């Protein structure tokens, strides 16, 4: 399945979803023999035989509905004219899809539809791409005998409230595809058919404008619509695309596959790929609609340099910028030593790009001072899963959730942060799976339409490990463990030690209740439910990893899954939901300062020699600096030069004032990015990066799925990111001569056993590949640890609960925890530059009514949020989503800058910051904080220095 340039055609639709069955059925359709699984509909069987039965209300993304009456067929031996979309195949069936009788009826049906439909096809936005128009042609409609003077809906007003699509009810045929898509595909239930009979109409929420309703703007309804009733505004503006390219979304760790539908170099729309293995044709508001940042006017497309951050930027050629950067870095090394410089890779970049940056650092810089932003999100996952199971990755495919009986969500908010997977999870929950949510905050999954958690363990921030130990205590003390599984698959010495530790009464739910705040009986009930399964699956997010005991908690989760036998088969497992699109990949590619690609320690001589031989250099055997260590070393004057590809540490990393102090101390900061982000304001070299639409490469999502990223338009800055890194390496005297990212992947495959079978040719053939992919698993590995754990025997690790040092005090009596929102992404550099600001144009502090009342705070008030690290001011939102004593905010906007408040506390094993627990005070205020005032002035100053470069460019062009 090559996704390279293809002429535009609407994605094929087989009418009804595929059915899985070991048994098959043979039938004939118009004399053509076809064999399909039991449960398949006649409509789908016909489509598989290459026979397209006319249809309007049917789609292979939706369950059969049987309302449009176009797909009627004649079946030998059956009375009447059954709807092929709701009729299942039977052995020996003889189906006729085209007869004079059927043709007459279909024409009559179409005639009725068109009698209440505008005849403006030539000026209609979907002209040439409309199923209704196509069906009118297919059935041979030539006249509408009823006329157009009767009652109709042709004057129905448009709803243009949503920034991305228009709802034009005058064109609606009330087929319910949009309503069903909202229910079945997205699971939000925001749409309904309001009224009865002739008055029936599609309505959002309580018959509100779309933007005011609970619609999450996923676009499933737009995709489902067979007319121009729900249409992308970009399609209305630009017209029908002319070619398509299959590529992968650059937002969250779900890694949705998309058809970029394009005209020349311009993306008309992004349509989720029905063949996409992670998303199966679904998407969220970010992936489908929020791609406009790629061509935003803020894009910087020419390299710039300056000697000091108080000087104006100077636009220069690529050669001069690269030479300037390389010269500065070599100068620093000559003066301060080889270890005085380093690099940061980004989970927003491709595998090939991150691989190249770590290679640059190790081979050209000559040290291991390379780290990735996974440091500040999922590094505890790498440590915890590697040490217990043997591999630093989630154990399952997303589809595994459809076989889970009990789903546990810990410290994750999938409906906001991983929305497409959340839709799949909700589908399984609607089928009857049980749900346990462990989170201080009442996330949407706790209670939303047709979903209700069986248990919500609303623990106090910072007490995860006490909770996981209590759950394990119940399992062991009540004899719920999987003894045979443990004996067969786990290290028994370690198990005995762990068992002794967990059975200590201090780990009982009754004892831990004072720490967690969760009633013991609820913990016991949840533990029993998880242990009973039979298939229980744990999904977790940054609410697990971003703690002082993040790594301990990951090990605790793995312990619990091993103890109950919930690893190694579909429906079970331990699945970290990765925040960004390529967190898994950036870790896989050797971005950590202690590991080479494939999670192999730099101190291992055999591994190091393999890379040294391949790269033709000696490699430093000692671990390098992690990101927080880099900042500390910079403040101490030991670390002087940094190359940052695609990261914005000045906004995303904790304790902002410490980070900016470190960045200010650098002699040379090189930022490679799309925009002059917060970090770039401290830079001496700016190298214009390329968006995901402008390059080739691969991303690896949270289920270890490697998916292709394909170039849709030429890089605005002239170079793809890997080319920039390559140029820097060459300028520093280390030769790199790749001509395409596929050659980088070939090198990765040669040097990394888990990637040995990966190639661009195989990715083209299979669409995507879940690693490990090698001789033992040529097609990849959906489920890990099937017969044995990667490390051999599963290792139970002791998980003592060590309370964080970050505790409430009279001065800071509340606990702040941070998170994300659906419409914005990470630091917001991309989504803030799209119409997604319609949903979230500022970060808000959530505070419980009790705490708000005590402080005289009302919704919308400006409040000061102060910790021992710093103070910021933002608006308050008063809500019972948070419990008393806990406040919550997001970190998407630099103006509110939540990380001014977060501290330098971190995970003991990995230094992953403790974003989720900060002791704070909240007070009503009337003005911005001192930091914000300083930051505002600094931002204005930097904007002026940037304008100078732009003005120089303009005068040069004049």
């Amino acid at each position, binding site marked *: 399945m090559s996704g390279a340039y293809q002429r535009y055609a609407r994605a094929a639709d087989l009418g009804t979803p595929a059915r899985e069955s070991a048994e098959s059925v043979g039938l004939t359709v118009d004399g053509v023999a076809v064999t399909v699984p039991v449960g398949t509909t006649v409509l789908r069987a016909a489509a598989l035989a290459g026979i397209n039965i006319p249809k309007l209300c049917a789609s292979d993304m939706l369950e059969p509905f049987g309302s449009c009456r176009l797909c009627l067929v004649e079946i030998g031996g059956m009375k009447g004219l059954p709807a092929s979309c709701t009729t299942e195949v039977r052995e020996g069936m003889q189906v006729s899809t085209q007869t004079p009788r059927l043709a007459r009826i279909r024409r009559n049906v179409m005639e009725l539809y068109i009698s209440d439909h505008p005849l403006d096809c030539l000026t209609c936005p979907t002209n040439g791409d409309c199923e209704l128009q196509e069906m009118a042609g297919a059935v041979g409609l030539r006249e509408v005998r009823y006329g157009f003077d009767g009652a109709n809906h042709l004057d129905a007003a448009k709803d243009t409230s949503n920034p991305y699509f228009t709802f034009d009810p005058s064109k609606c045929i009330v087929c319910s595809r949009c309503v069903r898509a909202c229910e079945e595909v997205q699971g939000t239930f925001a749409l309904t058919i309001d009224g009865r009979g002739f008055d029936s109409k599609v309505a959002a929420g309580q018959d509100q404008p779309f933007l005011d309703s609970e619609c999450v703007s996923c676009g499933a309804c737009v995709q489902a619509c067979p007319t121009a009733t729900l249409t992308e505004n970009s399609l209305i503006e630009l017209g029908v695309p002319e070619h398509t390219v299959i590529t992968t979304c650059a937002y969250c760790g779900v890694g949705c596959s998309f058809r970029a539908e394009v005209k020349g170099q311009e993306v008309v729309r992004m349509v989720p790929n029905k063949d996409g293995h992670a998303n199966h044709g679904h998407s969220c508001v970010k992936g489908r609609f929020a791609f406009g940042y790629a061509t935003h006017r803020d894009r910087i497309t020419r390299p710039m340099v300056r000697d000091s951050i108080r000087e104006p930027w100077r636009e220069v050629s690529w050669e001069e910028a690269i030479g300037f950067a390389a010269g500065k870095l070599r100068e620093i090394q000559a003066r301060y030593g080889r270890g005085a410089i380093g690099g940061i890779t980004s989970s927003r970049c491709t595998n090939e790009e991150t691989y190249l940056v770590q290679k640059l650092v190790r081979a050209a810089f000559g040290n291991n001072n390379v780290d990735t932003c996974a440091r500040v999100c999922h590094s505890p996952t790498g440590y915890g899963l590697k040490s217990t199971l043997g591999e630093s990755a989630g154990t399952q495919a997303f589809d595994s959730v459809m076989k889970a009986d009990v789903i546990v969500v810990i410290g994750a908010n999938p409906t906001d942060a991983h929305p497409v997977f959340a839709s799949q999870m909700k589908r399984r929950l609607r089928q009857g799976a049980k749900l346990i949510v462990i989170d201080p905050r009442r996330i949407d999954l706790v209670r939303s339409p047709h979903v209700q958690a069986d248990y919500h363990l609303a623990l106090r921030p910072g007490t995860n490990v006490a909770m996981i130990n209590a759950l394990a205590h119940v399992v062991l003390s009540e004899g719920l463990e999987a003894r045979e599984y443990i004996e067969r698959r786990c290290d028994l010495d370690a198990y005995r030690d762990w068992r002794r530790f967990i059975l200590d009464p201090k780990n009982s739910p009754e004892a831990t209740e004072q720490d967690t705040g969760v009633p013991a009986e609820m913990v016991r009930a949840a533990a029993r439910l998880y242990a009973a399964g039979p298939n229980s699956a744990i999904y977790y997010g940054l609410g697990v990893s971003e703690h002082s005991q993040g790594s301990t908690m990951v090990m605790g989760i793995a312990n619990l899954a091993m103890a109950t036998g919930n690893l190694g088969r579909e429906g079970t497992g331990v699945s970290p939901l990765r925040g960004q699109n390529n967190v898994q990949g950036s870790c896989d590619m050797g971005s950590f300062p202690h590991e080479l690609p494939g999670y192999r320690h730099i101190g291992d001589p055999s591994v190091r020699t393999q890379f040294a031989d391949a790269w033709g250099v000696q490699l430093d055997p000692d*671990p390098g600096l992690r990101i927080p260590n880099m900042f500390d*070393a910079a403040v*101490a004057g030991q670390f002087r030069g940094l190359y940052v590809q695609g990261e914005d540490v000045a906004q995303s990393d904790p304790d902002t004032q410490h980070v900016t102090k470190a960045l200010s101390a650098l002699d040379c900061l090189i930022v490679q990015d799309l925009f002059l982000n917060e970090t770039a304001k401290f830079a001496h070299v700016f190298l214009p990066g390329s968006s995901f639409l402008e390059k080739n490469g691969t991303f690896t999502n949270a289920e270890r799925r490697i998916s292709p990223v394909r170039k849709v338009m030429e890089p605005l800055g002239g170079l793809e990111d890997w080319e920039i890194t390559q140029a820097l390496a060459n300028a520093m005297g280390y030769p790199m001569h790749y001509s395409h990212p596929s050659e980088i992947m070939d090198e990765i495959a040669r040097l990394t056993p888990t990637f040995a079978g990966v190639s661009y040719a195989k990715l083209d053939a299979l669409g995507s590949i879940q690693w490990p992919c090698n001789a033992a698993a040529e097609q990849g590995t959906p489920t890990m640890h099937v017969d044995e754990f990667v490390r051999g025997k599963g290792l139970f690790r002791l998980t003592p609960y060590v309370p964080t040092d970050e505790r409430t005090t009279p001065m800071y009596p509340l606990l702040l925890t941070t998170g994300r929102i659906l419409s914005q992404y990470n630091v917001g550099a991309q989504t803030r530059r799209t119409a997604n600001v319609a949903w979230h144009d500022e970060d808000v502090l959530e505070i419980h009514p009790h705490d708000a009342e005590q402080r005289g705070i009302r919704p919308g008030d400006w409040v000061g949020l102060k910790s021992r690290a710093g103070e910021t001011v933002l608006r308050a939102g008063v809500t019972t989503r948070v419990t008393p004593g806990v406040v919550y905010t997001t970190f998407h906007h630099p103006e509110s800058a939540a990380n001014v408040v977060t501290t330098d506390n971190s995970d003991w094993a990995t230094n992953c910051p403790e974003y989720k627990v900060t002791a704070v005070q909240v007070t009503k205020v009337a003005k911005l904080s001192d930091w914000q005032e300083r930051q505002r002035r600094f931002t204005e100053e930097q904007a002026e220095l940037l304008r100078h470069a732009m003005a120089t460019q303009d005068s040069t062009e004049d």
Partner: protein
Amino acid sequence: MDLQKLVRMANQIAANLDCGDEETTVAAVADHLRRFWTPLMLDELADGFESGEAELCDAAARAVERLVTQRRAGTA
């Protein structure tokens, strides 16, 4: 680098690797520091410990001593 931050990190590692058996804990802390810390960070912590500025818990202190000895002997 900030010595007190290094001390805090080392003590935190020791607290989390505490398995009840001191010898095993010390070995685990030393192994962790060796695998994840830069030589410069270890040196600065060791210097601080030897000068009395670094208040390390027993397990962390013994782990640092062990690493210093190993490094001087060229075995780590």
